[in-house]
């Protein structure tokens, strides 16, 4: 598998036009700031009753500060495993991962997770759900109340702070989950198909909303999705993964100017990125 060893540094940009935001992620690793995440030979093997299953096999990649990187691949290609490894929720079995120059050992306040479902606690109000990570980390609650209120205002949920999750729509619930991740002020936001359960219209709105939040907050985002369009629309770079074992097929740099409108989906350049990614994923058995 020749694609397997392709790293970020080797993945050449497809288009000479450099957007402002993605500028830092071009060029070679030598003339860049140190990566926020650096993975070398990262592997994860599950031991099951019938033997070992390689979920991730020697991944090499870097994620830079402020980048928006998506990971696309078929179901079962290990992209969710990758996210859980980066969140410190699953131990990796070989290789190394460094977060901000330090080896990753378990969950840290620097990386917050947004799950597939909102995972809101139904017995807590929206505000109390948002403040849950602060309670868990035993940080002083008083100093985070204001930032929680500000973040809820940013996503338009101020009026719902004292409501319960069952009173919210699916999109509002997932926005609450994003705020809950942001309240810890992490450097890295790990998002595991966060809009997969939403209807198409709400999903487009949430994509625009996420772009707005990202550009305001300056967080680094790793976004897992199986939607090629969503990945291209949101990202500076897209990591395409193969399945069984999960390896990196290629890393595509998306040179589309920001801020992006939904209409960018209809441009030729967007179409070429989509065709390129589809061929990468098709070569691995197809996903459509």
């Amino acid at each position, binding site marked *: 598998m020749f694609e397997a060893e392709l790293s970020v540094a080797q993945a050449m940009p497809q288009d000479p036009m450099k957007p402002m935001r993605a500028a830092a992620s071009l060029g070679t690793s030598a003339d860049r700031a140190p990566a926020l995440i650096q993975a070398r030979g990262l592997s994860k093997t599950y031991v099951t009753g019938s033997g070992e299953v390689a979920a991730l096999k020697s991944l090499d990649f870097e994620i830079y500060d402020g980048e928006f990187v998506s990971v696309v691949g078929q179901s079962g290609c290990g992209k969710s495993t990758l996210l*859980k490894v980066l*969140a*410190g*929720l699953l131990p990796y079995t070989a290789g190394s991962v460094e977060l901000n120059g330090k080896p990753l050992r*378990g*969950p*840290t*306040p620097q990386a*917050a*997770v947004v*799950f*597939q*479902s909102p*995972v809101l*606690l*139904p*017995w807590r109000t929206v505000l109390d759900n948002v403040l*849950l*990570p602060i*309670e*868990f*980390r035993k940080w002083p609650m008083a100093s985070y109340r204001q930032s929680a209120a500000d973040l809820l205002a940013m996503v338009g949920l101020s009026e719902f702070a004292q409501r*319960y*999750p*069952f*009173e*919210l*729509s*699916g999109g509002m*619930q997932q926005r609450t989950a994003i705020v809950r991740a942001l309240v*810890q002020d992490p450097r890295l936001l790990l998002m595991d198909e966060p809009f997969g359960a939403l209807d198409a219209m709400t999903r487009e709105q949430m994509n625009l909303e996420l772009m707005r939040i990202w550009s305001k907050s300056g967080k680094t985002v790793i976004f897992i999705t199986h939607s090629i369009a969503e990945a291209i629309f949101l990202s500076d770079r897209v990591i395409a993964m193969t399945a069984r074992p999960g390896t990196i097929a290629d890393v595509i740099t998306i040179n589309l100017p920001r801020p992006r409108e939904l209409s960018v989906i209809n441009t030729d350049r967007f179409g070429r990125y989509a065709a390129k990614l589809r061929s990468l994923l098709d070569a691995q058995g197809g996903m459509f």
Partner: protein
Amino acid sequence: MAVQAVDTPSPAMPREARPNLERPGVLRRYPQFTISPAILVALIAAWWLATDVAGVPAYVMPPPEQVLHALIGGLSRAPWDKAGYWYHAGITVWEALLGFAIGSALGALLGLVLSHWPLLGKSWYPYIVGFQSLPKVALAPLMVVWFGFGLEGKVFITAIITFFPVLVNMMAGYQAVEPERIELARSCNASELHLLTKIVIPSCLPFLFAGLGVASVLSILGAVVGEFVGASAGLGMLLMQYNQAMEISPMFAVILLLAVIGFLMNYAVTLIERRYCFWAQRSNATARP
């Protein structure tokens, strides 16, 4: 008719068969205040017909007015009068409540412990299953030997009977905690204590209340069975006395009283559940659009 053609692609439904979607009738909206009392009236009427009209003998089934007479007679006595029902009902409820409190508290606690430490849970599991399949009522005669005719034996048998539904539901609740809730806590470096108090125990509450609902009804059963095998007071003892004297009407009155007490115990649990578990019914429903 043009409207009908638009909204029914399948063969048109006759007008009278269409459900009235705008405003369901009072029967549909409040069946508990309309249909349920009607059923009660029908049942009493059938009872009256069977006894007073069809002539089922009173030693098999006394007519409703005799049972009512016995009930009023028993309830019109003072609470400290041992010939009245209040005194004995008080004893039985007290036994049931004590046993219920002890049994369900131990069941919830042990359910949590056995789930939280899987090695402990797995090694004890065969004995729990074995003891659970034992008819606990069979232990009642033993209680007289161990505790005599007093309160302790009844509390003990009630505690054993209420223990299992709570234990089993608590263990099921622990198993049903969404793994993502635990991952969320772990991703925030939550302590084991926080994981238990802020995630696991609240998540178990709907299951715990299901167990408490079953246990609340069983607690009356435990107390009455305990009184059957030997007691100096209580509604169960009263039943045995009336049985030996072949006084069938007061027996029916006491049975009715026990049904009402069981219903009220269960209703009390439901009220507490609505207060502390108000989110459980609605959180599983689809989110509003």
